[in-house]
C-alpha cells in the first residue's frame, strides 16, 4: 500500500534520512568547483561589506564629533562603496546559486528519468504513475524553491552574522559580549518551539492536502454525485475538511504571531543592552560614540538571519523529504543484466518455453508451461480473460521474467540474451495501444525514427489502413492530442499495428490487435497480413474468431496451463474448450 505524504515525511524527518540525502546532494554540488567557489566568495564579500558599511556609519558619527569634514566625506564614500560592492557580490550570489541549484535539480530529474527507463517493467505495476510524476516534478519543485530562494539568503545572513560578530569582538570585546547576550536567547527560543512548528506545519499540510484530494475526487465524480443527488452530502463532507483546515491554520498562526511578537521584544532588549552598556562605556571613554552607533546597527542585523533560519526549517524538511524520494527513484533496483550477454542477430530456429511458471504475486499466472514455436510458424493463443495469454506475451517480450523454467530462443536462454539485440527481432502490438503526443506519422515512426514519410505511407496502404487515416483532418499529419485523445480506439490500434509492421520484424507478437477495428478494415488487415507474414513467426493472442484463420496452430490456456493444442480444423471438430469458445462467433462470422 503506498504511503501517504505525511507518513513518508514523518519517516524521513524522524529517521534523519533527510540529512544524509542533503549531504549526498552537497557532495554532488561540490563537484561544480568553480560555481561553488564563486558562491562562497560572493557570500563572504557580502558579509564583509555589510560589516564594514555599518562600521563606516559609526566612523561618520566620530568624525562629526571630531568636526573633520574631510574624513566624514571619505567614510560616507566608504559606506556607499560597500553597498556598490555588495550589489555586485549579491548579483553574483543570486546567479551562481541559481546555477548550482537548478543544475543540481536538472541532474536529479534527468537521473530519475533515466532510472525509470532501466528499472524492471514490474516496477510500474507496483508504483503508481501519479506517484512517480509528482516525485519528479512536485518534489523537485519544493527542492528548487528551497535551494534557489531560501538557502542562499540564509547562508548569506548567517555568514554576515558570524563575520560582524567577529569584528565586534575585535573592536570592543566587552561591549561585544554584552551585545551577544540576546543571541543565545534568540536561538534557544527559536529552536525550543521547532517541534511545535513542525507539528503545526504537518497539520496544515495534511489539512490542505485533504481538501485538494477531496475536491479532485468530487470534481472527477461530479456526474455521479449529481445523478445520485448527493450534492448536500458531499458539501457536508467538504465543510468538515474546510473547518479542519481553518483550525489547523489558526493554531499555526497563533504560534507564528506569538513568535514574531516575542522576537521584537528580544530585539528591543538587545538594543537596550547595547545602548546602556555602550553609553556607559562611551561616557567613560572606553569606546567612541561611533562604536556605539555601529553596534546598534549590528545588533539590529542579528535578527533577520535568525528569523529566516527558523522559517527555512520547514522548507528544509519538506525539501529533504522530496530529495530523499527522488533519490529513491534514482536508486531503484535496475533490471538485472546478464553477466555475459549473448548477441542475437537473427532468429533461425525456434522459441521454446520449458516448464515456465510465472506469478504476479498471488497464484500462478502461468504454471509449468511447455511450448515450442518453430521459425515461420503462426500460433494462436486463446482462452478466457485471466487465463495467462498476455503473460505469455509479457515474458516473450522480456517485460517480465519467468519465476521458474526457461524460455529459449534458438536454444539460448532468453535471460542471457542481450535485450537490445533481441528486441530488434521481435515487435509487439500491445493490447493497450499507447499513443504519444504528436502526429499520426510521429507515432507510427516511434519504432523507427529513420523511416521516411514515403515508407510510412506505403506501409499504411499495404495494410489497407489508408481509409482510416484519410478521415482525419490532416491525414497522417493530424495532431492526435494528449495521449491520442482525439483518436478512436480503432485508429489507435491501426497506429499500433503499423508501428510494429514498419519494422518488418522476424517475430511478431500481437495481443488483441484488432478488437476495436471495424470489420471491413479488419478484413483488409488480415488479407495484407497473410502475405506479410509469409516467412515470419507469429504469436497471436486473441478472442476473435476472425483472426484465427491467420494461424496454423492454436494453444488454449486455462488458469495458467495449456489445456488444448492443435490445428484449427481439428480443434473445431472436437468438443473441447476451443470449440466452445468459438461456437457463437463462428456463426456470426459465417453470417457475414
Amino acid at each position, binding site marked *: 500500500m503506498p504511503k501517504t505524504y505525511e507518513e513518508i515525511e514523518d519517516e524521513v524527518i524522524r529517521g534523519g534520512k533527510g540529512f544524509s540525502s542533503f549531504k549526498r546532494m552537497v557532495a554532488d554540488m561540490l563537484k561544480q568547483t568553480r560555481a561553488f567557489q564563486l558562491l562562497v566568495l560572493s557570500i563572504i564579500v557580502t558579509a564583509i561589506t555589510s560589516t564594514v558599511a555599518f562600521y563606516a556609519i559609526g566612523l561618520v558619527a566620530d568624525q562629526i564629533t571630531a568636526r573633520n569634514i574631510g574624513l566624514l566625506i571619505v567614510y560616507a564614500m566608504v559606506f556607499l562603496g560597500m553597498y556598490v560592492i555588495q550589489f555586485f557580490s549579491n548579483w553574483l550570489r543570486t546567479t551562481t546559486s541559481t546555477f548550482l541549484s537548478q543544475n543540481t535539480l536538472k541532474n536529479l530529474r534527468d537521473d530519475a528519468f533515466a532510472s525509470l527507463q532501466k528499472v524492471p517493467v514490474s516496477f510500474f505495476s507496483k508504483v503508481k504513475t501519479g506517484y512517480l510524476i509528482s516525485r519528479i516534478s512536485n518534489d523537485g519543485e519544493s527542492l528548487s524553491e528551497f535551494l534557489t530562494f531560501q538557502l542562499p539568503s540564509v547562508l548569506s545572513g548567517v555568514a554576515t552574522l558570524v563575520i560582524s560578530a567577529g569584528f565586534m569582538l575585535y573592536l570592543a570585546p566587552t561591549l561585544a559580549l554584552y551585545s551577544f547576550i540576546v543571541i543565545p536567547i534568540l536561538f534557544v527560543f527559536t529552536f525550543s518551539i521547532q517541534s511545535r512548528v513542525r507539528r503545526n506545519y504537518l497539520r496544515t499540510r495534511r489539512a490542505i492536502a485533504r481538501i485538494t484530494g477531496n475536491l479532485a475526487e468530487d470534481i472527477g465524480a461530479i456526474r455521479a454525485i449529481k445523478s445520485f443527488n448527493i450534492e448536500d452530502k458531499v458539501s457536508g463532507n467538504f465543510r468538515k475538511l474546510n473547518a479542519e483546515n481553518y483550525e489547523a491554520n489558526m493554531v499555526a498562526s497563533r504560534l507564528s504571531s506569538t513568535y514574531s511578537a516575542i522576537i521584537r521584544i528580544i530585539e528591543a532588549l538587545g538594543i537596550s543592552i547595547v545602548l546602556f552598556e555602550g553609553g556607559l562605556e562611551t561616557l567613560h571613554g572606553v569606546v567612541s*560614540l561611533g562604536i556605539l552607533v555601529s553596534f546598534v546597527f549590528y545588533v539590529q542585523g542579528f535578527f533577520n538571519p535568525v528569523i529566516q533560519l527558523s522559517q527555512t526549517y520547514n522548507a528544509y524538511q519538506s525539501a529533504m523529504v522530496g530529495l530523499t524520494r527522488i533519490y529513491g527513484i534514482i536508486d531503484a533496483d535496475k533490471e538485472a543484466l546478464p553477466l555475459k550477454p549473448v548477441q542475437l542477430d537473427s532468429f533461425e530456429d525456434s522459441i521454446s518455453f520449458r516448464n515456465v511458471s510465472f506469478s504476479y504475486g498471488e497464484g500462478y499466472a502461468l504454471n509449468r508451461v511447455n511450448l515450442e514455436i518453430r521459425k515461420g510458424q503462426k500460433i494462436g493463443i486463446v482462452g478466457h480473460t485471466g487465463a495467462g495469454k498476455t503473460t505469455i506475451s509479457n515474458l516473450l517480450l522480456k517485460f517480465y521474467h519467468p519465476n521458474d523454467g526457461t524460455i529459449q530462443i534458438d536454444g539460448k536462454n532468453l535471460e542471457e540474451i542481450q535485450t537490445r539485440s533481441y528486441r530488434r527481432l521481435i515487435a509487439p502490438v500491445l493490447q493497450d495501444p499507447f499513443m504519444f503526443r504528436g502526429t499520426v506519422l510521429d507515432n507510427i515512426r516511434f519504432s523507427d525514427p529513420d523511416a521516411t514519410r514515403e515508407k510510412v505511407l506505403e506501409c499504411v496502404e499495404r495494410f489497407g489502413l489508408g481509409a482510416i487515416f484519410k478521415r482525419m483532418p490532416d491525414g497522417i499529419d493530424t495532431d492526435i492530442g494528449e495521449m491520442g485523445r482525439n483518436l478512436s480506439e480503432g485508429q489507435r490500434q491501426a497506429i499500433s499495428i503499423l508501428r510494429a509492421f514498419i519494422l518488418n520484424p522476424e517475430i511478431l507478437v500481437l495481443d488483441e490487435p484488432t478488437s476495436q477495428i471495424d470489420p471491413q478494415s479488419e478484413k483488409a488487415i488480415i488479407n495484407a497480413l497473410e502475405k506479410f507474414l509469409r516467412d515470419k513467426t507469429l504469436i497471436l493472442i486473441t478472442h476473435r474468431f476472425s483472426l484465427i484463420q491467420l494461424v496454423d496452430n492454436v494453444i488454449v490456456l486455462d488458469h495458467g496451463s495449456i489445456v488444448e493444442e492443435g490445428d484449427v480444423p481439428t480443434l473445431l471438430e472436437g468438443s473441447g474448450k476451443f470449440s466452445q469458445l468459438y461456437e457463437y462467433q463462428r456463426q456470426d462470422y459465417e453470417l457475414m
Partner: protein
Amino acid sequence: MKINFKKALSVFSPLVFALKYLKREKKITALVLAVGGFTSAFTLLISIFIGDAVNRVLRSGLSGLQYYVYLIILVSALASVSQFIVSYGSQYLSQRYVYELREDVFRHMVSKKFRFFENETSGNLLSRCTMDIEATRNFVLNLLSQLIPTILMIIIAFYFLLELNPFYSLFFLVVIPVLIYLGMTFQRKQRVHWKIIRDDYGVMNERLQENITGQRVVRGFLGEEREISRFKDTTDTYFQEYLTVAKLRGVYNNLMPLLISVAATAVILYGGYSSIIAVASVGSLVAAVNIFNTMISPVSILGRLIVWSENARAAIDRINEITTGKDEEVFDAAVKKEVRPPVAASAITFSRGPRLILNGMSFVIGKGEFVAITGSTGSGKSTLISMLPRFYDPDSGEISFDGIRYDGFSLPEIRGKIGVVPQEISILSGTLRENIGFGNGEYRDEEIVEAARTAHICDFIDSLPDRFETIVGERGITLSGGQKQRIAIARAVLPRPELLIFDDATSSVDAETELGIFRSIREKLSGTSVIIISLRETGLMFADRVLKVEDGKLKEVTEVRKELLTITADSEKKGGGWNAEDL
C-alpha cells in the same frame, strides 16, 4: 512615470472582494487596519529614540540615557503587542475569508448543470478551487499584514524625517517612488519568464506521464535513449529560463538596497556637514539612517505586492466565473411526489452546436419493461438517455412520468427514482461499502450485500480479506474495469429505483456474467423499468424490446443479429471515430 489613480486603487480591489465574505468581521478588519498603523509608528519610534539616546550620550547625561533605554523597551513592547494583533488578526481574517469562499465556490460548483462540466477540464476546475483561492487568500493576508502597514509606514517615516530635518524627508521622497517603480518593473519583467517556466513545467509533466504510461512501447521499440535525450531537452529549457530569471533578480533585487544606501549616503553627507557647521545633534542623523535602514525590506516587498495584486485579481475573475450563478440547478428542493413509469418522451429534439442529435424522438417505456437501445457510435444514444434524469433538457418536445410533465417534479424527486450506471465509472476512495452505499440514505448491511449480489460482485468482495470494508482508490486496491462497472451497478440498484439506466455499463463484463446481472435485476427488481444501451448481442437478445437510434430518430428492431452487423458497418462508413463524442 504616469500614475493612474483608478488603476493604483485597483490594487485594493481584492480586499473589496474579500470583504463580501467578511461581513461579520467588520470590527476586526477595522482593528487590524488601525493597529497596522500603530505598529509602523512604534517601529519607527525606536529609530527616533536610538537617535535621542545617542544625543544623550553625547551630552554625558546618564539619567537621560536610561530614560531613552526604558522608552525603547516600552515602545518595543507596544510594537510587539500591536504586531501580534496585526499578524494574528490578518491570519484570522484571511482564514475566515478563505473558509467562506471555499464553501461558496463548492456549493456553486455542485449546483452547476452538466453542460457546465463539458467545457471545463477537471484540472482547470481543481486549480480554481485550490490555487486561485489560495492566491487570493495570500494576497488578502499580505495586504492586511504588509501592504497597508507599509504604506502607512512610508507616510509616518516621511513625517518623522520631516521633523528630524526637512532635507532628510526630501531624499526619502525622491527614493521611495523609484523603489516602488523598480519593484513593479522587475515583477512585470520576471512574470513573463515565470510563465515560460510554468509552461515548461507542464511540458515536463506531460513527458513524464507519457513515458511512464507508455513504458512498454518505449521498451518494446528500444526508445529509451531517445526518450532520455528528449527529457533532457525539456529540463534544459527549464534550467535556462531559471538562469534568465536569476539574472533579472540579481539586478533588480539588489538595486533596491543600493538605492536606499545612496539616499542614506546623501543623508550622512548632508547631515554630517550641517551637524559640523551648526553643531547640531548627531542623534538625528543616526535616527534618519536607521529609518532608511529599517525601510529597506518593507519597501522592496511593496513593488512585489502591487504586482501580486494583479495575479490575485486575475484569480478572482476566474473564481467569479464559478460563483456568478450561471448554469445552475436546484439540487436541494423538497421531495413530495413520486416519479413513476411509464416514462414517455414525445418529439424531443436536442442539438449540440450546429449538430442536431435528437430529431423528434418519441417513445414510451412501461413499468417493469426491459428495453435495449442500440445504434452506431455517435448516434446519440447516451444523449437520449441523459434527458430522462434531466442531466440535459431537450430543446423542444417533452418528457413525462406517469402522465406528469417532468418540470412538474423537482430534481431530487426525479434523480431519487432514476438510477444511472454511466460509461465512465467514478470510484471514490473509501471502502467498498461506502462506494456501494453512495446515494442518500442509510442502508443496512443486508441491503448492501443484496445489491452486490444483484450486481454479481459479491463473490469477488467475499474473496477479499476485509470484504466490504476493503479500501479502494488511491490508497487501496485497484479495481478492474469490469469490477468497477459492477460496483456502479450495485450502487444504482441499491435504492431500488423506479427506472434503471445502463449506459453501456456492462462492456467490460464477460457475456455470461452480463446475462446473470440482467437476470437478477429482472428477478429482484421486478417493478423497475430498465433501459440499457448496448452493442452486444447478450443485452439485445435479453431485452423485451430493442430500439435503434438512427438519424436522430428511434426505430423498433426485430432482427437483432442482422442489425448488429449493419451497425458496425455504419460506424465505418460514417467515420464515426474522428472526434465522435458519444454523448
